[in-house]
């Protein structure tokens, strides 16, 4: 079947394969950037300026410059600085993880700051250690608090994977634009839209479910 001279039976399988690439970037970024984001949040809250200040600068740089530029940097920067290069996919994941950890750091910092001091004080007088307090009492409340903003961020992530095309990662947007050039048609790009939309619908529904699941108590 063809529309506007675009052979869909060839294009769709390619796009499905490219969606797998999107999903790979998505999950690898989550797996690394969320724990890293927590560390960033804790570092930002550190009493020691030697820890909190550089962390803040890192966040400023990665939130203040385009992700596209950061992708270029991780792809080509190491060669100029150290004389070696990461492969495309590694450079891509590095850029995404480090960029998203900066954003998650900010979200989680807000979540931790939203927990009233009284929670720490009650735990302390009951004899909980600092670690127990964080793991059992603070962290679960922080998670509940940051779920909506995190969901929002992950929907952005799905769309941001399209930026990886600039370093030639064969993700969905690159496959679509390449097909568009090949067939002199904008149909492939238009077809890409529902792919992103479906993936993001899954993210949206999942997070609504998690939110609902955590609704059994109010902070």
């Amino acid at each position: 079947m063809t529309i506007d001279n675009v052979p869909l039976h060839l294009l769709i399988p390619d796009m499905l394969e490219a969606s797998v690439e999107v999903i790979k970037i998505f999950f690898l970024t989550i797996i690394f950037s969320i724990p890293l984001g927590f560390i960033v949040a804790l570092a930002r809250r550190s009493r020691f300026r030697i820890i909190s200040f550089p962390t803040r600068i890192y966040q400023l740089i990665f939130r203040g410059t385009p992700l596209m530029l950061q992708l270029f940097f991780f792809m080509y920067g190491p060669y100029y600085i150290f004389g070696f290069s990461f492969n495309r996919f590694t450079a891509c994941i590095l850029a995404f993880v480090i960029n998203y950890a900066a954003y998650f750091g900010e979200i989680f910092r807000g979540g931790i700051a939203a927990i009233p001091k009284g929670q720490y004080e009650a735990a302390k007088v009951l004899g909980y250690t600092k670690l127990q307090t964080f793991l059992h009492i603070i962290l679960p409340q922080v998670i509940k608090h940051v779920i909506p903003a995190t969901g929002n961020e992950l929907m952005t992530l799905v769309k941001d994977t399209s930026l990886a095309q600039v370093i030639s990662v064969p993700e969905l947007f690159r496959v679509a634009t390449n097909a568009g050039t090949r067939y002199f048609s904008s149909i492939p790009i238009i077809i890409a839209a529902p792919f992103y939309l479906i993936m993001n619908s899954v993210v949206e529904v999942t997070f609504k479910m998690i939110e609902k699941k955590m609704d059994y108590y109010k902070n």
Partner: protein
Amino acid sequence: MLLKTLNLQKSFGKTHVLKGISLEVNEGEVIAIIGPSGSGKSTLLRCLTQLERVDKGTIEVDGIQMVGMNGEKAVYADNKILHEIILKVGLVFQNFNLFPNFSVIKNIIHAQVKVLGIEKSLAHKKAMELLEKMNLKEKATSYPCELSGGQQQRVAIARALALNPRILFFDEPTSALDPELTGEILKVIRSLAKEKMTMVIVTHEMAFARDVADRVIFMDDGVIVEEGTPEEVFGNTSNERTKEFLQRFNQN
């Protein structure tokens, strides 16, 4: 003697809040601390429960030295001893500070298991007994956000009692509550007093202080101005500052 402090001093920056508090609490005694706003009552309780550090003075809890003096400076015991001491005291906050992510019963079980290492089934049994005592058995599986302020405060008292503290401190346990809910908390404290639970209660409920306390302490501007039986303090104090405070209080 369960608690003994000598000449406690505490400043926040330039604000000198505690200006030499010496206090003794005997086993089974109920002490009410009254005094105007800003006189340092909460700060005193917070120093005794390790939420603030004193600058000077000594504190001894159940015979264990928590803070001693080395020359001009207060020196705290090591962390192991401080932990041992914190288990001897309980604190009930003005705004409850229950853990919202835990059910009522879990609020009472959790520290027993995690902090004291008590077996879960025993902790559960104890929690149910305490809830029964607080008249809240049917709320065991509810979450704090589903309870009234008075109910939340009773859970907070049960949570503190579950760890068998030697002394229980209360910082204005009823002042965040609607007037019609204060009664249920005061009733619980009264019944604890009957069981000879040692308690130190900061309160603005003068009638209650008079009724439940063995000893009343009047604090003003970081010092203990007067201390005595309820009759002595409320009945016919000869102290001008106490008189003035009580008069102003009666007018409101």
